[in-house]
């Protein structure tokens, strides 16, 4: 697969289809790939990598890249194409300046999960059958690939590439891998249990803003929380609930535009399962407004940005609420 992508990137540069390529660049180790812009076939040859550690969603970079003049090629995995299309819909990416190469994906891995499974000091990982063999400073360690997948990949919503100019590999289908199971687990909790679950999880927030900055749905030129003139900037929390509120508000802000790409949870240094907030909203929207997948097409309006007479009455919130005592 990696060789095919490299050849494609080199060909696109050589035949002048594009001026540059957005991809993943080799790091110090086998797993620490960095999103990068490649300008020459030599750079591609030397550093371009596509592997199970190419988890980073490159879509958001295209907001800026599509405005830099010339044409840029981007390699997008199925879930990345949903983010890309949602950004197109929001007029954030200049489509004519991007050449999308869709690439099929079997799921990407979480190096922190691999390390937590006992592979500290890991220096190499190879696939053997269904499993991974990690070479570490302290010997070899085997684990199943399933246990190494990023949370979002373990319950992958779709192998379908919803937008591309060219496809490498097979087109896939949407699938139901049970991504709402964790949300249902939370729904089954009592309000007190749920409250204490989220208070506990969100209490670890260090307000680094990685979740916001990586999120393709958070594409405001200037976030209100970064603007000293907004009156809403909170560099320090006034109380222990303020960071909690930040995440809740952010989830509301991206509701019905969030494609469930899972980048927020992938980048959180504190392992807060932020995607569960977004996924809860997706599930609610599905139930209240009919099934809706953000980024799946160019035509439909996100339910919360549209009004129809059949929309749920606000009182439904009260009816659905948990504890009314």
């Amino acid at each position: 697969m990696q060789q095919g992508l490299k050849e494609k990137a080199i060909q696109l540069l050589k035949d002048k289809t594009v001026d540059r390529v957005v991809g993943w660049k080799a790091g110090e180790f086998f797993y620490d790939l960095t999103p990068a812009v490649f300008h020459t076939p030599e750079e591609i040859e030397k550093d371009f990598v596509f592997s199970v550690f190419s988890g980073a969603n490159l879509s958001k970079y295209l907001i800026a890249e599509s405005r830099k003049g010339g044409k840029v090629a981007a390699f997008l995995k199925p879930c990345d194409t949903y983010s890309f299309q949602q950004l197109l819909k929001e007029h954030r990416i200049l489509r004519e300046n991007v050449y999308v190469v869709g690439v099929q994906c079997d799921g990407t891995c979480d190096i922190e999960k691999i390390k937590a499974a006992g592979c500290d000091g890991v220096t190499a990982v190879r696939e053997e059958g269904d499993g991974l063999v990690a070479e570490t400073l302290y010997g070899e360690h085997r684990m199943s690939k399933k246990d190494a997948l990023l949370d979002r990949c373990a319950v992958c919503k779709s192998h379908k590439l919803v937008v591309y100019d060219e496809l490498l590999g097979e087109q896939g289908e949407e699938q139901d891998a049970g991504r709402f199971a964790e949300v249902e687990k939370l729904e089954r909790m009592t309000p007190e249990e749920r409250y204490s679950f989220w208070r506990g999880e969100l209490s670890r927030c260090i307000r680094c803003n990685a979740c916001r900055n990586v999120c393709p749905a958070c594409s405001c030129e200037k976030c209100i929380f970064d603007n000293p003139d907004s009156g809403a900037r909170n560099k320090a929390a006034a109380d222990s609930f303020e960071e909690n509120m930040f995440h809740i508000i952010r989830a509301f802000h991206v509701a019905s535009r969030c494609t469930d790409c899972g980048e927020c949870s992938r980048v959180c240094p504190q392992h807060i399962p932020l995607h569960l907030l977004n996924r809860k909203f997706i599930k609610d929207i599905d139930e209240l407004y009919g099934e809706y997948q953000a980024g799946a097409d160019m035509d439909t309006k996100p339910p919360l940005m549209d009004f129809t007479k059949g929309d749920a009455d606000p009182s439904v919130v009260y009816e659905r609420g948990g504890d009314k005592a």
Partner: protein
Amino acid sequence: MKKLPLSKIDELFKALSAGQKLYIPADDAAGQAKFTVWQEGLALSQKLNTVRSAKDLFFPQVENLVGFKVTGKQIELIESRDPAEPFVLFGVRACDARSFDILDKVFLAEPADTYYKARRENGVVVTMACTRPAETCFCTVFGIDPTEPAGDVSCWMDGESLYWQANTEKGEKLTAGLSMLEDSGEEAVRAQQEKTREILGKLPLKDLNLKGFDGEHMMELFQSPKWASLSESCLGCGTCTFVCPTCQCYDIEEFNTGSEVKRFRCWDSCMYSDFTKMSAGQPRPTQLERFRQRFMHKLVYFPTNNDGMYGCVGCGRCLQKCPISMNIAKVIKTLGEDKK
């Protein structure tokens, strides 16, 4: 040197927490280590290091400095600093222990920062030698020996025992009250160090070359065209700065509660778009300048102003936590290519 069987470690923690707070690395709900106030039943983490560094205990993310209350033409100053209380910080690794030296240069230089100083004076640092360094570790590049950590007390741990060595007056004083410790030889510790040093010799980043990262090459490094590609995919988040044991930049702001104005300080990040913003505008208008600042500070400005002491301790947190896997090791290698 003293020693204690691990079966008695709770007894030690209990004694250390008598009359003061004891912080130890313990696993949080996500299974990552965090310095946590010890109480009966809290287990020492087996992780190599905490996600948030030990600097938090001396330089917290947010702290109140002072309050103001205005009544008519009177301004009342309200003392609002945390009361300085003694505490013990147990299980600090050698990298974080070095970070205190770096922070001291900043906060204890005259005029000393009295908030930081009070915590430094009240804190006793008990370090723990490393036995299983990670592939992301490179403290040895900065002359740190993780098998011989500094601190008021240094500890080593094997499968059966904890070894304890007081290094300073504060450490001696702490040790004096610990009757459960028995005298011990140093053989076990020396053997462990030997073994760990073999691993240190295999670390992939052990040969990071800092040649040319100095004041003499300042402008050359500052003007390197490589900053553009190094910084191009930086998200501008604050993860690296917030998990970094040596990042020390902060902001001071005021908050009007309605009845009082609270002046507080909080960590700031040079990666943020409003950092250094002033009335004339933003002198670092793009992520390139912000990104460059972070690394120039640690690798060039800080050592130039502090007798060659780099502002990095090689703990590897930024390598593990950067969302796009860009970090100081990559910066050193990329810029250093021109120096060899």
